């Protein structure tokens, strides 16, 4: 196991006050350590030196909870494809490297402290329609809803999203389309989700806009940054589902009006 000597430039910020980069030396970091373990070592040293440790979000450290969220050298979750910050290991760096560490930046993700941001906008989008309205105990026997393997596999591809927000952080418009399209796409693909498809699509997209996420201009940086490699094909599907739902809504509204006029 080799030891690396690194120079860090870490974003420090308290609440809404302006932030700045702090230079932190990180000598003798084991190359087997994960990026967050490197941050643990740095924090341990800062605390012992009487300084304020760097605050960051993390929990599972297995790439599944979606809590970790660092922009490393300008890339959301760092340079390794399909990998969260917590699963990135220091063997991907070389001794002498300078590493820039920033929070996931987006208007809809205000900074809480240092590298921690507030992603509750994602929960509010889910609340707007990211579910099937089935009460506990009201479900039919499971195998009475046959789902073809291809459909189940496609739904699972979308469902793999961990809700981390790297797609937003990597997008120059801070668009949340990849996330929203994955969440809506999973349910819109499955037969269980069909009944509420239009309502769900409209509600989730409208909530996304209300949260202040930007528009998608097909840059596709999101797909490259996504640790679960969610495909931009889901965005295309969401656009189709949205167009259909909007037309139906217009026609429906028109029909209601004409009925009212009769």
């Amino acid at each position, binding site marked *: *196991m080799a030891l690396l000597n690194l120079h860090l430039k870490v974003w420090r910020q*308290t609440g809404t006050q302006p932030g700045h980069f702090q230079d932190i030396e990180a000598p003798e970091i084991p190359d*087997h350590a*994960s990026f*967050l*373990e490197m941050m*643990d070592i740095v924090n*341990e040293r800062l*605390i*012992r030196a*009487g*300084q*304020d*440790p760097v*605050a960051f979000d*993390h929990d*599972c*450290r*297995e790439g*599944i*909870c*979606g*809590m970790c969220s660092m922009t490393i050298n300008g890339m959301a979750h760092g340079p*390794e494809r*399909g990998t969260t910050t917590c*699963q*990135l*290991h220091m*063997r991907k760096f070389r001794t002498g490297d300078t590493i820039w560490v920033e929070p996931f930046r987006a208007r809809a993700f205000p900074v*809480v402290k240092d590298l*921690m941001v*507030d*992603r*509750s906008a*994602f*929960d509010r989008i*889910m*609340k707007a329609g*990211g*579910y099937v*309205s*089935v*009460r*506990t*105990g009201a*479900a039919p026997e*499971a*195998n009475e809803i*046959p*789902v073809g*393997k291809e459909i*189940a*596999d496609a*739904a*699972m591809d979308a*469902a*793999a999203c*961990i809700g981390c927000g790297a797609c937003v952080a990597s997008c120059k418009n801070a668009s949340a389309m990849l996330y929203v399209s994955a969440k809506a796409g*999973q349910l819109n693909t499955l037969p*269980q989700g069909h009944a509420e498809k239009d309502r769900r699509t409209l509600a989730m997209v409208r909530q996304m806009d209300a949260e202040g996420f930007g528009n998608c201009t097909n840059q596709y940086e999101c797909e490259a940054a996504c640790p679960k490699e969610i495909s931009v094909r889901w965005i295309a599907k969401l656009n189709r589902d949205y167009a259909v739902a909007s037309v139906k809504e217009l026609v429906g509204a028109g029909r209601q009006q004409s009925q009212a006029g009769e």
Partner: protein
Amino acid sequence: MKLDSKIPSGPMAEKWSRHKQDSKLINPKNKRKYSIIVVGSGLAGAAAAASLSELGYKVKCFCFQDSPRRAHSIAAQGGINAAKNYQNDGDSVHRLFYDTVKGGDFRAREANVHRLAEVSVNIIDQCVAQGVPFAREYGGGLANRSFGGAQVSRTFYARGQTGQQLLLGAYSALSKEIARGGVEMHTRTEMLDLVVADGETKGIITRNLVTGKVEAHAADTVLLCTGGYGNVFFLSTNAMGCNVTATWRAHRRGATFANPCYTQIHPTCIPVSGDYQSKLTLMSESLRNDGRVWVPKKAEDCGKPASQIPEADRDYFLERKYPSFGNLAPRDISSRAAKEACDDGRGVGPGGRGVYLDFSEAINEFGENVIKERYGNLFDMYERITGESAYKQPMRIYPAVHYTMGGLWVDYNLMSNLSGLHVLGEANFSDHGANRLGASALMQGLADGYFVIPTTVANYLVTQKPGAVTTAHPAFKEALEAANGRINQLLNVKGKRTVDSFHRELGLLVWDKCGMGRNRAGLEEALRRIPEIRAEFWENVLVPGSGSVANPELEKAGRVADFMEFAELLCRDALDREESCGGHFREEHQFPDGEAKRDDENFCYVSAYEYSGDLSKPILHKEPLTFEEVHLTLRSYK
């Protein structure tokens, strides 16, 4: 104190339906008057919060992560059991019940386990209706795989992300209820204490992890769904935030803690590689469907690359020792077998603490693409962490702490001895005895949350006047002051050592003396050392910053302080239980071939500890276990 398990009368297979019949009902209009606090948004908490809100109760739900979707349940990989018998291989509710009781080494309550097996089938229905994308066969039906300790194939799965998908299902149901106004969600909020007013549990004290504000919340009953305490060992497969705080604080307020020494060591984890390490990573048990576990027969071969050790010189020790279950022997047994091989000097990898999990035969038989489809994400994770490819060489694995069967004592209604406190999921002790079978924790969390508590909670609520106790009650004031006092105490020590350094020291000690093998001398030493470490912690811990802002070090300090107290109870229970059963292996109590030796004559009971005010003198209460359906026999997988 008398521990009344409230097990319904009647034949085993009818107890739950009878109990449902006999349970109290509250009419919809009155339900709206009752408020319920749910601490935790994992499978147990999210399922309970959503289902209770659907029934009309007013629910407040809390979690310490920034979103309910990030609860530790998200990390479960392998699958969830259910007695659907879709494979037509002879499965039934009774067989799942039997396997779980036997798997738990006859230290679980039969009636609870039977109920679990019964509702398992409803869970799958519920999850499918929510849109959980379980694996399917080409015909459109649900697919299954096998898990340890069973000879039928009853595990449902969603690639290697079953927990994630089940939790997202429960989170979507929760989101629906938040939108409807039935659930008030509090994220980034940690419970610091339980409030008991005039003998009834009526609320909690929390700290907002962003603003630091300490607050009181009152309700007519409290549900703790706060997960397990595996992180007392410092290194475990649990998420970093998993803690014992909620259940330990409840214990200090009067709830008995049951079987703390029943901890599960999972056989297939990535071995420890250095002292910078913050956690261990599980490689799902499902891998044992296709992987074969072995070590070299000769210690001198251990340094050679696996490919240079000929077939004849390999010891497939699980297949050798347990021919009828082979690589799918249960966790406790597989873990001990791996430890034995390493103790014998035949471990592989750095430090000699590892055994091989080899897929070469399966790759030859089915092709790399099939193996990739089954386990691709696990192989990728292994490569990211170790830098090695398991397609090219065998994985190296070693047992690690994974799950805790012990927890707060509950009766058949999932209520603690402390009136009004309900405990669900991994946080309670109820269903797994001394060892949990794979794919049964997800089942239990969802059973408790979706199907048990919505029925049983009414039995308590009908005895209470809704809204009778508010935060104006003096018990809230006392608890608020205590919580604030503790925060200040932690911040004011201003010592020299970090929280992590204490956590690591405690964890290594507990792992060494109360891990896979336990003996009297070691446990007595641990019981001497723990109070010393704890005393040093309160004199020498260094918690930077203040309590009035986001301060992750302060959060950790509070959790570690509770682990320091809890660890003593864990070791005391392990010392007291003079037998080996399931995950609790007392080296003094084994057969000549090294198998665990249970003592039904003297230890066929649940140990439930009451807090006495003195950490070194907990009061032991015993709930005797009786077995009507499954006969107490030697648990054999040979």
